[in-house]
């Protein structure tokens, strides 16, 4: 191979490398500000991280629930027509895997109380999502927990008390064990 071809080839390989290698950063996008992160990061962690200031009571929750939730979920949370919210855990209930018709609701199926606050605040009421104040969400959460026999009628729900509510279903949760392959079906 003539010398010039060798040089040209080496140069081409070098150019190729420079043109196709992924840079460490492209530099696209703009930095997110603390303020916009605080405004948008609304998710609540199961340990309560992310819960806002404020609080709610079962009594206030009853009034808000009747006005803004009962039309879809029923006067006491069991009538529907949409998702049934109230089903206290009972010792004599058949296990879910043997009872296809057993109602799954907050009291017997939800593993974390924090999920109620997170979901109600982001998605409810269905016809006006995101319209409730933090205190209203705390109060509705308190009413739902009480209706599911998880807290007393005089309990106050806030960033400290909500993650401490013991949810009976939590002990039943297991992580996916399916792996594919020729083994037994899971």
């Amino acid at each position, binding site marked *: 191979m003539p010398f010039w071809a060798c040089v040209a080839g080496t140069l081409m390989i070098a150019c190729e490398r420079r043109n196709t290698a992924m840079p460490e950063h492209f530099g*696209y*996008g703009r930095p997110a500000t603390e303020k916009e992160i605080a405004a948008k990061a609304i998710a609540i962690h199961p340990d309560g991280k992310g819960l806002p200031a404020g609080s709610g009571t079962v009594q206030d929750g009853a009034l808000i629930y009747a006005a803004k939730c009962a039309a879809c979920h029923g006067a006491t949370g069991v009538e529907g027509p949409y998702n049934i919210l109230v089903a206290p855990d009972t010792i004599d209930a058949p296990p879910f895997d043997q009872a296809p018709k057993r109602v799954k609701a907050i009291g017997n199926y939800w593993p974390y109380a924090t999920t109620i606050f997170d979901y109600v605040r982001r998605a409810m009421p269905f016809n006006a999502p995101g319209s409730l104040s933090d205190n209203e969400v705390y109060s509705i959460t308190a009413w739902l927990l009480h209706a599911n026999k998880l807290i007393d009628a005089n309990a106050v729900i806030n960033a400290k008390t909500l993650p401490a509510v013991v949810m009976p279903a939590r002990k039943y949760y297991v992580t996916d064990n399916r*792996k594919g392959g*020729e083994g037994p079906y899971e």
Partner: protein
Amino acid sequence: MSQKMTRRRLLLGGAATAAVVLVKSSFGKMVQTGIPEAAIDPTKQVGPLPGVLGTRSPFEHPQRKPSLTSSQTPLQDLYGMITPSDLHFERHHAGVPAIDPNSYELMIHGMVDRPTVFSLADLKRFPSVSRICFIECSGNFRKPDKENVTPQDICGLTSQSEWTGVMLSTLFREVGINPKATWFLAEGSDAAVMTRSIPVSKGWEDAMIVYAQNGEAIRPQQGYPARLLLPGWEGNTSVKWIRRIELSDGPFMTREETSKYTEPVKDGKIRQFSFTMDARSIITYPAYPAQLQKGWVEIRGLAWSGRGKVQKVEISTDAGKTWNAARLQEPVLDKAHTYFRYLWQWNGDTAAIMSRAIDETGYVQPVLQELIAARGIGTGYHLNPVTAWLIKRDGQVVYSPEKWK
């Protein structure tokens, strides 16, 4: 069905029009005109001239089947591996949001070195990748209890597209992921502000932020202007209209990954984070409401697996007693609908035909009783049983309902 066909035939040649196109009048002006359903002799009449958008033939009417929360793809009306974009199944939790692409933003923050906001234009500047894969809802089995159900009714919550976008790993590198981050939250900008927690490992493996579907911008129903795409995983995790990704050291336990998209399994347990879609197949022809004639029949259908490629599809024409390999249509892709065919001679006797998929992990698609035996009758999501079609002596093809016990 036959009555409907007759009425349609009666309309042919009449004034009925199914599509409107623009054509140039004799004065050179663009005017709208309809495509007639059929000319008496198409060789004796000039047809509509080129137009700005194509249309389906006025003789073809594939339609999704909508409910309040979802719409199903008409699998029995399709011939290949790609689902036409306007027939892609839908499942949303608070309707389809209207999002202006010019104000769209995706924020990635949490356990990252550089919390960053990307515009749609930013996302499109990154190196792009296209891949063909299915998206299937994990609730894609409706326990049908009657004969007159179609493939669309049984498992129409699966569809396939070519998706184009940026690898999530590219964005992860861009923002610098804290090595201690193990999960991320994906949040949509629909009215449910829907969220799921996803292991970071899936983000490095093959997750994408996609903005194009079958060569054009994603349809609003599929997440316009951008969505998460997690190949092979239950559809709910491919969060549409994605607006925010928050890196964290654990799952957030959102409503959709606790009270929904979890399934009761043996001993009263509740199985969570069941991400991968197991291998499945369905015969889409002959299936209800097809009418068979004696003689050669090409059995056709789709097979797929969330764990990799479909290795084999087997067909039984004797109610599951014996099985033979079907031909797979190339290309057979990773985590993708694969079209299969099997030539068979129907002699006019009653027959039960069925298909089963075997994926590259060696997993064999189970029958319903095997799933119930493994999980209990109260189980729910991730049901992928073998589906049987019954051919009656008169050639009528119906679903063969199975007892849920």
